[in-house]
């Protein structure tokens, strides 16, 4: 699977040890992520589901995302749940805006067990939240 370059957003994709790893960089400020981001994420879910891969998304280096991106991510998380794809999210705890968003996401998905949200502070080892 290839990465995605969409405006200021760059997503690098790697595959290793049964994981499909995405690293989000830059800013995701698109008013309508359904054009580029949603199909990209849906493809990732389909591939992970078919090949039984774990999806790992890293947001630590991301500068900013808007609420439309969060809405797209929420739908993506829902899709992962429907397809029984294990999802692991990493965020930068020293970025307050990331904390606000991922703290809420981790609580939303506490019950499913399919989504793990890890807080990574600069230089720290990942801390599991749910």
């Amino acid at each position, binding site marked *: 699977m290839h990465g995605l370059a969409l405006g200021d957003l760059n997503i690098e994709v790697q595959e290793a040890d049964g994981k499909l790893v995405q690293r989000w960089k830059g800013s995701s*400020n698109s*008013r309508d992520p359904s054009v580029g981001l949603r199909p990209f994420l849906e493809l990732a879910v389909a591939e992970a589901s078919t090949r039984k891969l774990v999806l790992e998304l890293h947001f630590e280096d991301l*500068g*900013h995302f*808007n*609420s*439309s991106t*969060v*809405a*797209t991510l*929420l*739908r993506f998380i829902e899709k992962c749940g429907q397809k029984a794809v294990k999802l692991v999210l990493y965020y930068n705890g020293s970025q*307050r*805006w990331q*904390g*606000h968003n991922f*703290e*809420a996401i981790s*609580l*939303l998905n*506490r*019950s499913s067990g399919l989504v793990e949200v890890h807080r990574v502070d600069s230089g720290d080892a990942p801390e599991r939240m749910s």
Partner: protein
Amino acid sequence: MNAGQPVQKTARFDEYRDVLIHDWMKILAIAGVVLVPLFLLLDYVTMPTELLRKFAAYRAAATATSLVQYLILRSTRPSRFSFVHGYVLSFLVAGMIVWMTVDLGGFNSAYYAGLMLVIFPINVLLPWRSFHAAMNGLLAVGLYVVANLALGGDFTASAVVNNLYFLLSSVVLVVALSETRYRLLQGEFRLRAALEDTNTSLETSRQDLKLARDKLWSEMEVAQRIQTALLPKNRRLGGYEAEAVMRPAEEVGGDYYDFLETRQGEHWVTIGDVSGHGVESGLVMMMTQTTIATLVNDLPGRKPSEVFVHTNSVIRENVSRLGGTRYMTLNVFRLDRESVTVAGKHQDILVWRAAADRVETLSNQGTWIGVVDDVRNAVEDQTIGVKMGDWILLYTDGVTEACNARGEFFGEDRLRKAFARVAGKVSLPRAVAELLDEVRQFAARTDDDQTLVLLRRVE
């Protein structure tokens, strides 16, 4: 492709050509009025004295008829018969010249050359078909031949051949020129028509764009109206003074806040942010406001977490029905005498402690509205003690994520410092205005709504 278009274009070309013929005929008639009498000077120099009066009379008659023709052309509109004027003018002026050649002895007279001054300008200037050029030229030559054969004097064959050679050559030339010119005119018209069609198409596109823009503005106005119509007035809420300001973004974000005083005397404050922009966000905001207002009035003593959980059920259901993907960050506050209880997940809460002159940052644990059906396990009440004189600052991400030209966020640190500078030092309205002003000066542009809510315990 419309089969009627070529026919329509041909009709448009004929009209265009008739207008040109009509206009050029006016110029030719004026030329006749000016040049025909002017040639009396040549007559004076070259003609026998006894013929001068006669020639002057001919010229006067031709000039008068040219003038009449000009007046007729001025008082009539171009039509498919406008070309007839070309024949009439040729007949009158060429007839005058022919009559002079007859008086001068027929084919032997050199005045036949004057006919070329009729044949050339009329057939070169009038944008008509080569057929008319041929007919018009032959009319002049025919008059010349018939009149001089019938009424002219003796002549030599060589003179006739010479004169007709030049005259007919002139006719051939004007026929070729007319045909060339007519084709050029048709080409020019096709280009003009294409340009006009393009202009019409551009105008239609411009109108369509204007309509689309008006529709978009209308939608944005509706969204803005929804967003601002329900905003409460700043006022006292029990033992708290409340002041808020919202600066909507150009494209209308989804910021929301409310001050509520229930029938039972409870006081509630809400602040939130619906994802996305536009009318749909506004609708979610409006549904949230209505749901919360109903819930807190319906049953006194509810906890903020209960209000949040019930609101989530309603909004989740309605967002699903709308087929949307909206979610909402929301904090629900109940103001009590010595504390404030909050539920939900929104931005951090800044509290300025009057006794210590210090700002505390309080994170709220919880989740969002509209994402999952049941949030009972994700939301709990959090109580914040509030002493007399303490200030509470609530805000939306449009404030902390306002970007300067270098792409830096305004951030919580700047907001906290700005809050510490104004809290307890100025009035609530002044404090809100100064905070917003600081954000405005920092930000290079306004991409999102900016909302600030200040509470101060005064009792």
